[in-house]
């Protein structure tokens, strides 16, 4: 069970800010594939991974990162603070 969070336009396209996901995915990339297979809104949101960033347990990481021990995975566009 992983808490999956979406921010900014990723949140808007998927339509919810967070959800609890039951998954056996070993990596972020595998989780993304599972999500894309669900519904078109996920497929569209994740269609260009180069436009997305991912954090595991609030640390920025890569899509190839392992989900072992992960409680929280967040997807969002590049940051625009400051």
């Amino acid at each position: 069970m992983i808490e999956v969070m979406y921010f900014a336009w990723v949140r808007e396209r998927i339509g919810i800010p967070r959800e609890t996901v039951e998954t056996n995915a070993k990596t972020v990339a595998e989780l993304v594939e599972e999500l894309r297979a669900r519904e078109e809104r996920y497929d569209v949101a994740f269609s260009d991974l180069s436009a997305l960033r991912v954090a595991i347990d609030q640390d920025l990481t890569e899509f190839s990162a392992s989900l072992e021990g992960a409680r929280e995975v967040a997807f969002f566009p590049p940051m625009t603070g400051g």
Partner: protein
Amino acid sequence: MDIRVQGSPFDAGAELNAFTNKAQGAGAIVSFSGIVRDTAAGDLEKMVIEHYPGMTERAITTIAEEAQGRWNLADVLVIHRFGELSANDPIMMVATASRHRKAAFEAAEFLMDFLKSRAPFWKKEITGKDAVWVESKDHDEDALKRW
């Protein structure tokens, strides 16, 4: 080190004075403030800043600790707002205090470069016509290579 992520407005001048008083003996104080710019058409109704509560504080703390490790700083201040802002509102500020101006300048630039691309904030501009997420700029990512 003082890091604040808040919805409420702040007074950059009052913060600068409080920071300066606290950093007695530092000699050199640098501040940066970011202000909401209106659109080119002048029709900005509001700017909405979304953030990732928890990760935001964590990311800024990591960046500020990195700055303190690299430069000899008496103190570091970071304030960043989220929520709804209007044109000309202060969005955020950083301030650095050091014995030497070079360290204070470099640390403030470092903080800004990393806050831009590593702290989880996203800006959306709402005008009478539409609502647009501000896009990140390649040169913001490039700015990190300097450090």
